[in-house]
């Protein structure tokens, strides 16, 4: 197998391996897992490794103590209801405490069974079967059943709902714990969309309660199957969660979690310094130095999703960006080290060179990234500009960044001036920018500085940003569209991997999107937390917040 991200099945294989190596001898799981896989099954993934309880032997320890989490954004109640999940990772910061899903990533084990104790995806991708964990319960004490899983799927209204509903042929329930989704056509991306924060359809809500209170009532008083239940919501500015000692994986160590919404960075940091909060999302700007200097504060820094430059209308022969040499010159003119030094104090990753994040399924590996995609070489850039017929450069109408990344855009503008590309910053209010993005290349002429937190895999982003008909696309390359259509039609995983890698390489070689650098995030925790930051922050792909909550420990 090529050294490539085989997201679905490499992960499934890892899970199987972890399962095999694990010491799990939970008889109920063994009983529940089919003894003989049906002929069409390509893999039966059972609980093992990290997903299975890191332990619950002996007398159960009662949860104690309280941690306070300083949250950086306003909260919307829709985030407490997976049925309305948008493509916003922030929402999952709450969902991972309150709710649980059939499959989800755990540290060291991706796409692990969670509320499901095992699952199978047919090798023709025409069905997916789940065995629900016997110990899985909602906060009201009711067991999680096949009826709940069916209801969750059928009533789901969040992102990608139409795709799931269109694909579904029928749902088969053998008993309260066994359920199979049958699809009308191969649903190759099922696991990526069902088992990651790309959608909320795999996060199970209690059917009877949901029907009783309705979607809006549920958002005000949600009941989940996660390790913590919501006991207080003060005007969506302070949420109090209480541990569920019967949580299937393990009893949480900490009794109470309070999410405190503090949107002002300085106040949030002051609260951490004063010991009022234990976890702090997003330490940035001028707060980084005092945070580093404070011995009581532990920081964790990670690079996340990349920024990239786009050239709307580059396909037009009259556009200077129509010449690939000019687009490459733009890439070569970017001093990414200088940018990351200024923007993040130098820790953000600049060796990506790709417009998609490494931890997205299907993304090119580091070995597959060509150094020239992120090389800084001003002489070469000037030479390419001259070769393209622009020895003195040219003027571009504007560069429009996504708000609030204006300082980054200013740095890019300054650096492009070195090769004679003169442009000015176009500040747009975020809402107007977002709307303009959907109106094709004419709405935002010149250059765009963009970034995306879209979850799923590379194909998910490709559909949005690269396809001619992509919802957020400002480019159209028919040859790439044709190849992507092959990808979509294929059920051969090797072929899909190959096609996805080729697509990304071709696009990068053409500098359709010029990589800038990866957004860096710094998170902090106070001295009362016993876990090392690496255990609980950024512990799974595409999720920068605290997880798993049941593993959080306080110092005695």
């Amino acid at each position, binding site marked *: 197998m090529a050294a490539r991200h085989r997201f679905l099945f490499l992960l499934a294989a890892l899970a199987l391996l972890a399962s095999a190596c694990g010491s799990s001898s939970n008889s109920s799981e063994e009983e529940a897992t089919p003894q003989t896989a049906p002929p069409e099954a390509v893999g039966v993934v059972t609980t093992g490794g990290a997903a299975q309880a890191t332990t619950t032997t002996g007398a159960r320890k009662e949860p104690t103590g309280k941690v306070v989490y300083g949250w950086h954004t306003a909260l919307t109640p829709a985030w407490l209801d997976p049925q309305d999940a948008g493509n916003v990772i922030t929402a999952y910061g709450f969902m991972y405490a309150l709710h649980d899903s059939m499959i989800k990533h755990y540290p060291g084990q991706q796409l692990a069974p969670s509320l499901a104790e095992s699952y199978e995806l047919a090798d023709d991708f025409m069905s997916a079967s789940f065995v629900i964990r016997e110990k899985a319960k909602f906060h009201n004490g009711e067991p999680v059943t096949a009826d709940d899983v069916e209801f969750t799927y059928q009533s789901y209204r969040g992102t990608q709902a139409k795709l799931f509903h269109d694909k579904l042929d029928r749902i088969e329930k053998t008993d309260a714990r066994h359920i199979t989704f049958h699809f009308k056509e191969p649903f190759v991306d099922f696991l990526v969309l069902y088992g990651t924060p790309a959608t909320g359809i795999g996060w199970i809500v209690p059917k009877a309660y949901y029907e009783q209170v309705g979607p809006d009532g549920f958002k005000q008083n949600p009941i989940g199957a996660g390790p913590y239940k919501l006991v207080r919501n003060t005007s969506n500015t302070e949420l109090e969660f209480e541990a569920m000692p019967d949580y299937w994986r393990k009893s949480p160590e900490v009794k109470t979690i309070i999410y405190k919404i503090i949107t002002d960075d300085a106040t949030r940091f002051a*609260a951490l310094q004063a010991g009022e909060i234990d976890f702090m999302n997003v330490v940035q700007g001028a707060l980084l130095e005092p945070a580093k200097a404070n011995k009581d504060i532990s920081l964790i820094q990670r690079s996340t999703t990349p920024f990239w430059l786009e050239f709307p209308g580059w396909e037009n022969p009259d556009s200077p960006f129509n010449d690939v040499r000019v687009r490459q010159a733009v890439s070569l003119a970017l001093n990414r080290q200088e940018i990351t030094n200024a923007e993040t104090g130098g820790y953000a990753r600049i060796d990506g060179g790709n417009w998609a994040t490494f931890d997205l399924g299907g993304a090119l590996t580091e070995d597959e990234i060509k150094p020239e995609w992120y090389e800084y070489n001003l002489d070469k850039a000037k030479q390419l500009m001259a070769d393209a017929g622009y020895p003195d450069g040219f003027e571009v109408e504007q560069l429009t960044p996504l708000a609030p990344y204006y300082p980054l855009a200013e740095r890019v503008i300054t650096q492009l001036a070195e090769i004679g590309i003169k442009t000015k910053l176009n500040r747009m209010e975020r809402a107007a920018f977002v709307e303009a993005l959907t109106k094709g290349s004419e709405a935002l002429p010149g250059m765009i500085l963009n970034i995306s937190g879209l979850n799923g895999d590379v194909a998910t982003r490709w559909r949005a940003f690269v396809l001619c008909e992509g919802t957020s696309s400002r480019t159209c390359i028919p040859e790439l569209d044709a190849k992507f259509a092959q990808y979509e039609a294929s059920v051969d995983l090797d072929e899909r991997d190959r096609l996805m890698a080729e697509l990304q390489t071709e696009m990068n070689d053409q500098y359709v999107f010029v990589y800038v650098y990866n957004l860096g995030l710094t998170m902090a925790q106070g001295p009362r937390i016993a876990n090392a930051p690496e255990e609980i922050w950024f512990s799974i792909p595409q999720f920068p917040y605290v997880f798993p909550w049941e593993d959080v420990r306080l110092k005695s």
Partner: protein
Amino acid sequence: MLRYILRRVVYSVITLLLLSVTIFLIVRATGDPARTYAGPEASEEEVALIRAEYGLDRPLLAQYGSFVGDIVTGDLGRSFQYRQPVLDVYLDRLPRSLLLASLAFTLSLAIGIPAGVLSAVRSGSWAARAFRAVALTGVSIPNFVIATALIFVFSVKLGWLPTSGSGSAKQLVMPTIALGWYFAAATMRLTQSSMLEVMRGDYVKLARLKGVPERLVILKHALKNALIPVLTLAAVNFVVMVNVAVVIEQIFAWPGIGDLVAVGISMRDFPLVQGVVLMAGAMVVTVNFVLDVVYAWLDPRIRLNR
């Protein structure tokens, strides 16, 4: 008097109508609310669903008609984000904003009025200088700086007060100072100029000639009259404190109306922004209406001149 009141009611209604048109159009001028809410990566189907759910697929005039019709029945619409009636969300936050604004309002008057009076009648005294300095500091330094400095000193360094949040008296101290201090200076300036004008009045001169003690002249004869414009401004300031203390509420994580406005804007929740701004406008119009009527009742010249 009745004709005067009716005239004021008509003016108030016209003002509210103009306000509703302005809010309605401004919210939509910044972009398609459904698209901005759904995000750039949402499919057209998803955006269409939102449009249909919130009636945004209808002609603008029909939308406005429904908007006004709903307002008349007390329906400010349904928040995109909170999935609740805007009025419910607003009323949930209102008590906390009223509490904070009341305290800040009291503080602004407690500093502003004595400072204004002293500046008018004893401009060279140390007390007048001290009051002036305090009041002017409040308006000279941006309130977010004051707020941050308060947090740094009283929470981080001294550990006396919590940085943020609501629910205890301690949590009210710093937001009250940061908000009230700013308005104290405006109150002081108006009190000072109003006092200076009043002190030149014939009745003040007469009181002095009659031998009324200076303290009584100032407090009983001058201040009483000088306070009319001051209280007018203060009333409007109070409405501002209740509804648009955005910066202070955000810094102190105070769950009030100002914070709600900021959330509405950042989350592109146009029904919420629309509703909150309309409520703020209605409050200003109502306060002005009440003040107009009270003035007219106190001073017949006002209603006769108009």
